[in-house]
């Protein structure tokens, strides 16, 4: 050690930085990214994350297919995306370097685990020459660090086997990067204690590795000054860093509390929705019942049963499961029972790209049932918004006695952001009343209960749950007579009921807020989005405006019914652009609904939009830049 090491250095201040951790799926990259994110959140940065992992549980070690990566964007100001391109790439093995390097712009920093660059690993991922020895890395700032051996060294005094010690090398990397970006050590040290407390040898090894990495940064003299990203100005309040699936699960718990109803979730595991089931299963003390069904049809069916029993009922899945649930959802439409179906979208068709994000189930959500079966569709637009979207979907379901589809996607599900915790007292009361009394009198003066006698304003039918004396009734999927709910094959009644079901859902338009807009005077271009693209679109629109483009931003929170006045709003623009992580589904709806010549910006490669791609696309539409083909990811 030299003297300099102990001299306190003033870090260089950056306004933002994007770091990408990449390694083998066995290397713990998700955990490393997660820890760095948490420490940054606690340090007050604004941030956004993008985990990417392979579909296999553990793809063969050292191969390209086995690479797992985690990108985090931290900033001293409000940001909306995990960053277009990283500033720093940490590559724990050759496969990580090979698969990730083209994301790093020239001049970016590469931190390598040099120990991993042996013959075997190089061959496994198809490097014929060690990339450190040819011009592969020319133009980058490269730090070749023997992380494995340094980790083993740092843990030499401990009572851990070499192989076990090697597994702590991700903490070495984390320590190093923590030093580089002046993250405090304590939160991570505490977390290691917390998480591995039961296995003291693991605590010791990880702690040693983490500290060694930190010390290495301070000591090695090659990293220059540490950098620092100051805290972002945040509204006063208490914050937590939240992932979408967790926010969604908490939103479901909250909805139950706000509705004063027990929560029921019927679900069948599927990536990337399973974590909602997992999270919710931990909150039984809220009276939450979770049921892992034998399949998705049973999951949806069990929710229908629970809804009939008076619970706030949910079912969660991803595309393949949502496709299976269609018939059962149709039953709920026909019986007009409240329930919320959550679709955490992923790459399709069929099994597709199960761990990648996509937003290609919109048309399925709108139309994936036989017959005329209209129902509301709600979409979340950020990890924390999943919380509110769950409450909103529940509110509509309960108030209008209808199944509601809530759309999120893999990016929201696993992405995270700092979230200013709402005051629980400010959350809406979404409680509804069960029917308790007969609502009709027959010719002979006898009290009767008509399960399809509707509320005049909402057109909702009464919700009478078993156990309520005097309101015994039978419902089903056959057409029902208006009012009595008895089976009816009467032609005119069928037309009438079809109209009523349509009108009920259409009427919800008057009861929803949004879209989320950011409008300026004289804008001639509108960028219309829905779902997880909000962050990318916001950044892109801001940049376009900075470049002088007259662009407005309109983000839909409800896809059915559409926001009132949206047609008028859209008719004001010369150009309406609709970025979607699909081949143009919302754009179809807008064109059909409003006859506006909306144009799609499509990307279907399993990754979210980067802001710069969207800027390009908007500029192109405005006649300012050459066309780029985003779909094939050529520019991504």
């Amino acid at each position, binding site marked *: 050690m030299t003297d300099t090491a102990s001299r306190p250095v003033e870090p260089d201040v950056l306004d933002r930085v994007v770091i990408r951790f990449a390694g083998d799926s066995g290397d713990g990259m998700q955990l490393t990214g997660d820890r760095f994110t*948490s420490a940054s*959140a*606690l340090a*007050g940065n604004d941030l956004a994350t993008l985990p990417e992992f392979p579909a296999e549980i553990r793809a063969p070690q050292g191969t390209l297919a086995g690479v797992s990566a985690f990108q985090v964007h931290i900033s001293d100001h409000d940001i909306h995306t995990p960053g277009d391109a990283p500033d720093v790439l940490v590559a724990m093995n050759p496969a990580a370097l090979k698969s990730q390097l083209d994301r790093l712009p020239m001049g970016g920093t590469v931190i390598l685990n040099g120990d991993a660059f042996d013959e075997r690993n190089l061959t496994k991922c198809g490097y014929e020459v060690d990339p450190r020895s040819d011009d592969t890395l020319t133009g980058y700032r490269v730090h070749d660090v023997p992380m494995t051996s340094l980790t083993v060294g740092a843990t030499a005094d401990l009572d851990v086997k070499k192989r076990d010690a090697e597994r702590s090398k991700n903490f070495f990397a984390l320590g190093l990067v923590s030093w580089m970006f002046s993250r405090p050590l304590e*939160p991570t040290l505490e977390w290691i204690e917390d998480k591995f407390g039961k296995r003291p040898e693991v605590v010791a090894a990880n702690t040693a590795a983490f500290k060694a990495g930190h010390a290495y940064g301070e000591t090695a003299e090659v990293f220059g000054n540490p950098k620092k990203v100051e805290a972002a100005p945040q509204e*006063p309040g*208490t*914050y*937590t*860093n939240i992932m979408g699936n967790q926010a969604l699960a*908490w939103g479901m*718990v*909250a909805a139950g*509390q706000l509705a004063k109803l027990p929560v*029921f979730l*019927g679900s069948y595991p599927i990536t990337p929705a399973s974590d909602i089931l997992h999270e919710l299963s931990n*909150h*039984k*003390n*809220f*009276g*939450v*019942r979770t049921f892992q*069904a*034998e399949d998705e*049809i*049973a999951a949806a*069916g*069990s*929710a*229908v*049963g*629970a809804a*009939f*029993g*008076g*619970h706030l009922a949910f079912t969660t899945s991803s595309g393949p499961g949502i496709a299976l649930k269609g*018939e*059962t959802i*149709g*039953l709920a439409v026909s019986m007009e029972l409240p329930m919320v179906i959550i679709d955490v979208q992923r790459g399709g068709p069929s099994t597709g790209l199960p761990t990648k994000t996509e937003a290609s189930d919109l048309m399925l959500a709108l139309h994936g049932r036989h017959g005329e079966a209209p129902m509301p569709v709600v979409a979340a637009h950020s990890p924390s918004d999943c919380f509110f979207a769950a409450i909103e979907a529940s509110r509509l379901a309960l108030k209008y006695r209808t199944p509601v589809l809530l759309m999120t996607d893999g990016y929201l599900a696993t992405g995270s952001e700092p979230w200013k*915790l*709402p005051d*629980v007292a400010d959350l809406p009361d979404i409680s509804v009343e069960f029917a308790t009394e007969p609502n009709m009198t*027959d010719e*002979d003066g*006898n009290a*009767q209960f*008509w399960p399809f006698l509707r509320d005049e304003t909402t057109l909702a039918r009464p919700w009478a749950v*078993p156990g309520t*004396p005097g*309101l*015994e*009734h*039978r*419902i*089903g*999927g056959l057409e029902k007579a208006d009012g*009595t709910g*008895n089976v009816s094959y009467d032609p005119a009644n069928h037309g009438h009921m079809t109209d009523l079901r349509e009108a009920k859902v259409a009427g919800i338009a008057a009861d929803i807020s949004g879209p989320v807009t950011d409008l300026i005077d004289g804008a001639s271009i509108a960028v219309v989005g829905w779902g997880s693209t909000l962050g990318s679109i916001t950044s892109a629109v801001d940049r376009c405006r900075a470049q002088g483009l007259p662009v407005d931003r309109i983000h839909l929170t409800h896809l059915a019914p559409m926001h009132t006045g949206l047609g008028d709003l859209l008719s004001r623009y010369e150009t309406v652009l609709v970025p979607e992580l699909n081949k143009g589904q919302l754009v179809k709806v807008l064109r059909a609904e409003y006859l506006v010549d909306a144009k799609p910006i499509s990307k279907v490669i399993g990754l979210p939009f980067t802001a710069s791609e969207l800027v390009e696309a908007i500029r192109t539409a405005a006649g300012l830049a050459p066309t780029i083909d985003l779909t094939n990811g050529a520019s991504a």
Partner: protein
Amino acid sequence: MTATEVILDPTKRGYWTSDQDVRWCPGCGDYGILAAMQMMHTDLDVKREDTVFVSGIGCAARFPYYMSTYGMHSIHGRAPAIATGLAVARPDLHVWVVGGDGDMLSIGGNHLIHALRRNVNLTILLFNNRIYGLTKGQYSPTSEVGKVTKSTPHGSIDPPFNPISVALGAGATFVARTHDLDRKHMMATFKRAHEHRGAALVEIFQNCNVFNDGAYDNILKRDVRSDKLIDLTHGEPIVFGAEGDKGIMLVDGEATVVNVADVGTDALLVHDETRPEPTVPFAIGRLTEESSGVTPVGVFRSVQAPEYTSAVNDQLVAANAEQGPGDLDALLRSGATWTVD
């Protein structure tokens, strides 16, 4: 729901009868089952509002409309799954599930075996007419081999399920069989099933006089019945025949028809519904018209085992006791938080 007459006495059949016109074909076996169910209820100490009938689709599945309880006529095959959700949410209710052989064993087979495996507190009635009635006569998974139907003009080629075997194979804790010609037997069997805490499956031989008339004639006709039908009685040696001259004995592990005179009463199998292992009930269930010429009815198995909906509830209660009642604000703050002033 225009009740012309209001009957408030639960010991009267009318109390359990809805105001809807019954719409099965004249002569259909379903009428008798409905009557037995309504009559049986006059004998129970339950309230109309605490009872729910959930069904799938099919002629049998029309059943809920005719009971004055709560009810749901859902979609084809899914009744056990829907009922499971209802029972889990509302363990206070009596939930019945009704469906035909197509509904429960063809499209709904998986939901059925999972409900049985989980031992969800459901009373499940399988109306087995060995045909698809509502869709006008295709063969079903319980139709005998060689069945000529609209969809099998050259005769069906796949062997039928034995519903008793399927249920026991799935781990059912209560399995019984009855038939539409014996109201008393139906009532007694329904009552036993209703009393069972856990999943109870009752197979009901039901005649579809339009598309599969006489399916059970060769075991149920008055003149053959006593030689063909075995009424299982718990704790009793299994005997049958007009003169009680025939019996069932376990021979090399298999239930076998014997002459009582040949083997003596002591050698007969004594029926024990409560054996912890389902093997012997399974052996008895293998007795069929095809295999041995005789068909047992009554309760094959009835064992006590942890019930699913209670266990769900227990976990909620335990979580509450351990973690305290849910506090939303605390939940939101349960991760790492930081405060900006």
